[in-house]
């Protein structure tokens, strides 16, 4: 069962419905409540390889529901340090806890200045209201 709608403080947001939690020169990435709700029950997470370089605004993987496929758009550029094995093994976790156990990858930032181009929780909530 999916969690209630929320866009937590302390995260930065990309308009393609991804979030980033910045921890020094690393970041944890995932999809927002809005994204998982739009997709429905997620049954497959196609993750990138550890060590892969990913770029802000570009696809780094895919999530699939029974009916649809969606690209995962990276909110920041970096190198993949870790893939969340719980999310690949039990993709429903992404619906249940999109900001917690359902995180997708951890990266080392290659351009920390990009964080200035992401949205605050308030700005992202306003963006979602227009969707």
């Amino acid at each position: 069962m999916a969690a209630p709608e929320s866009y937590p403080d302390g995260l930065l947001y990309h308009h393609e419905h991804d979030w980033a939690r910045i921890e020094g020169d690393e970041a944890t990435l995932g999809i927002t409540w809005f994204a998982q709700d739009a997709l429905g029950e997620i049954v497959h997470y196609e993750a990138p390889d550890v060590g892969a370089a990913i770029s802000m605004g570009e696809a780094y993987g895919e999530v699939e529901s029974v009916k649809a496929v969606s690209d995962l758009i990276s909110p920041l550029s970096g190198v993949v340090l870790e893939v969340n094995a719980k999310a690949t093994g039990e993709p429903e976790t992404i619906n249940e806890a999109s900001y917690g156990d359902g995180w997708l990858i951890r990266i080392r930032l290659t351009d920390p200045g990009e964080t200035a181009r992401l949205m605050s929780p308030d700005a992202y909530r306003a963006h979602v209201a227009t969707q």
Partner: protein
Amino acid sequence: MPQLRRTPLYDRHVALGARIVPFAGWEMPVQYEGVIGEHRAVRGDAGAFDVSHMGEFEVEGPRALAFLQGVLSNDLDRVAPGQAQYTLLTNEQGGIVDDLIAYRLDAFRWLLVVNAGNRDADFAWLKERELRGSDVRDVSDDHALIAVQGPRALERLGLPQAPAFTHAPATVDGIEVMACRTGYTGEQGVELMCAESDAVRLWDAVLARGVVPCGLGARDTLRLELCYPLHGNDITTDTDAISAGLGWVCALDKEFTGAAALRAVKAEGPARRLAAFVMAEKAIPRHGMAIREGGEVTSGTHSPSLEVGIGMGYVPAALAAPGSTITIDVRGREARARVVKKPIYRKEEGTDGGS
């Protein structure tokens, strides 16, 4: 784009929080709570589907049987009043104009239930070929149709057991219906036809009996696990019944449109066959994906029962045997799949499957 149509239950779907999508010219619920839960409700208990978008034709007259025998592939001589039959409307090349169920109402009267997206084309097709003494009428707008499917469907509705592919008048909480022991899920169940004006009352009565509302999403995963073809995807005017594995609904010993072409395909053996497959690695096949050995995926999804990617597609006949390995192009990545015997999913013992 023409205006999308709504069934009499549209407001009920919205009130239940359904996600509404365009389908075959209609605004239909694709899911309420979620496809997987709805799928499991039908496999384990009972689910209700609004299928009022489907087309219904009445064919009546002293020559109705002779007319239908000439345009439909299966043998209606074997169908008595109170019985029904799955059959194909075929073209001269043996292609499939539509698949449908023919219900015999009495000696001279039949009801055909056809796919929503083919309603107008089917009607025109039948009208062109009508015989003197057989009258075809489109009665779709007079009726609503609610499918109630699952091992507890009859029990929940308070309806008696009846053999598959039969129909009888019945009442559900005082509402008069034609209860048809047919469906598209592989589970025991009924399709309830009622007057358009009774649709909302019937839907409410069915749900009040603990039946779970289900959308088109679950309808698709349920039918694909059973390898029931979807017209427009798995079978079309360009695919023939023999290659599609539907030779069992073609009475090749009678004359009907395209029979000669189908006899030829059967005699020579089809070049390709509609095979069912299960992914051997984590990937979900989708309609239109190429099969490297030849052909393409005609239907694909995630199977909620088996928790694996499943699909059907036309493959070279030599690869259609169970146990063969095929390779699907999943957006540029090659994923292996194993051809399996149909159906992909089988009920455990003790239940009555097959509609």
